[in-house]
């Protein structure tokens, strides 16, 4: 990744000659840090507790979803609150295709196909749902799209509650275990020991999540550097300019919706695996808002930012829960004070406001500022200052 950057003649000429050795050293330092982080993530199951491994798996699902939403909102500038809906499509397809029929009060069906087929179909169907919505999306601009996508979440909730033969209705249904060619990821078959550490469901899911999240990250990075990626960024900055440059506005909007909802579909499958069951209330508007919080905190338009934001938003309530006793203002559940979940939500709200007011490029912007001070080149996917979606002047004004 950074090899290509070093080889990029434009960027090496922009960095001043004097600073060049310094940032060269830092780039390798950065590479080293990334490598260390990856190795740490790879060996984490050997010494990290099961609880944090499971949380990590949830966070990796969130990373995939957040990267997808960021492609749509951050890179292309299309506000969408429908992410929860696309997650639901992915999750439900997976549980229906790979699950067995069952259910007590409300009977539901299932195809019982291998889980990998369920996962692939989940991703594809979420993409199809995105494509179906894109005629609406491509015609609407800015804020109209935001509200129309809000509608999808509520319609999705209704469908989830009504279509009981697939969804299990109000109480939902369990998630089938994931396995690949007889190797169970959320089970213990076959037995596996690595360095005397038993590799059970939590450890196996951790690796599944890690592989998928890294793949999603690399794909998005490459997409942003490619021709379509540049087209999407032009689309955000000015639709008129984009169409003058030969970008087919409608087609690209439809495509980014497709890609973003496929990401959401995969995130939905992982979400279902991590919470173990799928119920309508798991996919309410709250979830969309949380995803929006992730990408705003991480930095709109930045793939790495979305990942960091996703980890932060997923981990904060858990950390609050874990250390509720020692935090001021936060109390144990049932004592009348602010519960851990509520405290986390309030903090997200506050963080969104502060980020919008003071650092519109989010955590990625802070990191970029740090890099600039060290004379390092900019992250290619992070829009340069002044063209971030949060600082461009109003385009969708209808005056």
């Amino acid at each position: 990744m950074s090899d290509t950057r070093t080889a990029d003649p434009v960027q090496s000429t922009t960095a001043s000659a004097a600073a060049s050795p310094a940032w060269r050293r830092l780039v390798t330092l950065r590479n080293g840090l990334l490598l260390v982080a990856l190795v740490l993530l790879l060996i984490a199951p050997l010494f990290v507790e099961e609880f944090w491994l499971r949380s990590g798996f949830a966070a990796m699902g969130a990373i995939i979803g957040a990267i997808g939403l960021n492609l749509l909102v951050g890179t292309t500038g299309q506000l969408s609150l429908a992410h929860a809906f696309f997650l639901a499509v992915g999750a439900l397809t997976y549980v229906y295709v790979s699950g067995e029929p069952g259910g007590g009060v409300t009977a539901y069906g299932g195809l019982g196909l291998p889980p990998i087929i369920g996962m692939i179909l989940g991703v594809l169907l979420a993409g199809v749902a995105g494509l179906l919505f894109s005629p609406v999306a491509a015609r609407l601009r800015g804020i109209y799209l935001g509200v129309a996508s809000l509608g999808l979440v509520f319609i999705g909730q209704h469908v989830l509650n009504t279509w009981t033969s697939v969804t299990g209705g109000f109480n939902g249904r369990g998630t089938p275990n994931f396995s690949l060619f007889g190797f169970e990821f959320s089970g213990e078959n076959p037995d596996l020991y690595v360095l005397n550490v038993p590799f059970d469901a939590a450890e196996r899911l951790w690796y599944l999540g890690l592989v998928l999240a890294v793949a999603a990250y690399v794909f998005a990075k490459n997409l942003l550097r490619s021709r379509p990626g540049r087209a999407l960024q032009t689309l955000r900055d000015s639709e008129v300019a984009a169409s003058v440059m030969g970008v087919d506005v409608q087609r690209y909007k439809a495509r980014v919706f497709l890609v973003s909802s496929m990401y959401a579909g995969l995130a939905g499958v992982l979400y279902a695996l991590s919470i173990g069951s799928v119920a309508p209330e798991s996919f309410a508007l709250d979830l969309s808002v949380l995803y929006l919080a992730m990408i705003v905190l991480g930095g709109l338009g930045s793939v790495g930012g979305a990942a960091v934001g996703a980890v932060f938003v997923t981990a904060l309530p858990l950390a609050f829960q874990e250390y509720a006793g020692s935090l001021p203002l936060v109390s144990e559940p049932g004592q009348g004070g602010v519960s851990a979940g509520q405290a986390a939500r309030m903090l997200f709200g506050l963080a969104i406001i502060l980020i919008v007011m003071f650092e519109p490029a989010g955590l990625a912007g802070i990191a970029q500022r740090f890099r600039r001070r060290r004379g390092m080149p900019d992250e290619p996917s992070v829009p340069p200052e002044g063209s971030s979606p949060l600082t461009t002047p109003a385009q969708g004004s209808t005056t």
Partner: protein
Amino acid sequence: MNTFLTLLLNGISLGAIYALIALGFTVIFKASEVVSFMQGSLLLFGAYTIARLNASMGFLPALVIGVLATAAVGLLVERLLIDRLRGTAVITLAIMTIGVDIILLTELTRRIGSDILNVGHPWGGEFVQIGGVGITQNRLYAMLVAAVLVSAFFAAFKFSSWGVAMRASAEDGETAALMGIKRGRVSAVAWIIGAGLAAVAGLFLVGSPTPGVAPGVHAVALRAFPAAILGGLDSTGGAIVGGMIIGIAEAMAAGYQDQLLFLGRGFGDVVPYVVMILVLLVRPSGLFGTKELTRV
């Protein structure tokens, strides 16, 4: 036929409440180019304040203070947050109001807990019969009050100097500012009106046939969003029409639930969104919204 008329009347009264909220959205959008995602929690805040104060000071003072307090919250948000970010992208400001909404809603949900507070309207939930058509007193008053407030608003919009200033700055902000119109003041007043209208709507929305002040009211208030979008976000008249369409459609779908059973129980709750998406497919900027023109 009687069922139909009853549903129609109830739909209109529900629509009147939606119209009040939608008018708030529209006024705020016209004056400050902000799509306020926090109207739902403002409404809940208003209803909650009225319900809490009602116990200690009686209905009328509680009502006045509740509406004023909600308006004050609106003003505070405008002065502290919106005013500083004038000229930023619409989407940015919308995201920020979502942030405010999260905080307000979480705090109110925590305070309400699992209780259902009662506002203690002096009018009860009795049915009034008008020529064989029944409606609860609460909804009847809602209609009347909404009619009065909406006419007062339109009169002010047309004749008062604030109304002129607002129309001018919505038409062309820069020119209006050059002519000496204080856009900050216009926007502040708009937020006061928007928040106040939400509080009044909240007062009626939590009355019968709804059980009382519960966090779920927030989701009901969100259905005024389709109303505002449907009419065209920058059209005040459109907000009223949109509110009526949404209200009637919802009441009809709920009333004829048995005939619509193939769409599932509780379909009435999502009708507003279905109607909105259908209308937006045909008219992307709503029924009465200004069409977006792109000049190069």
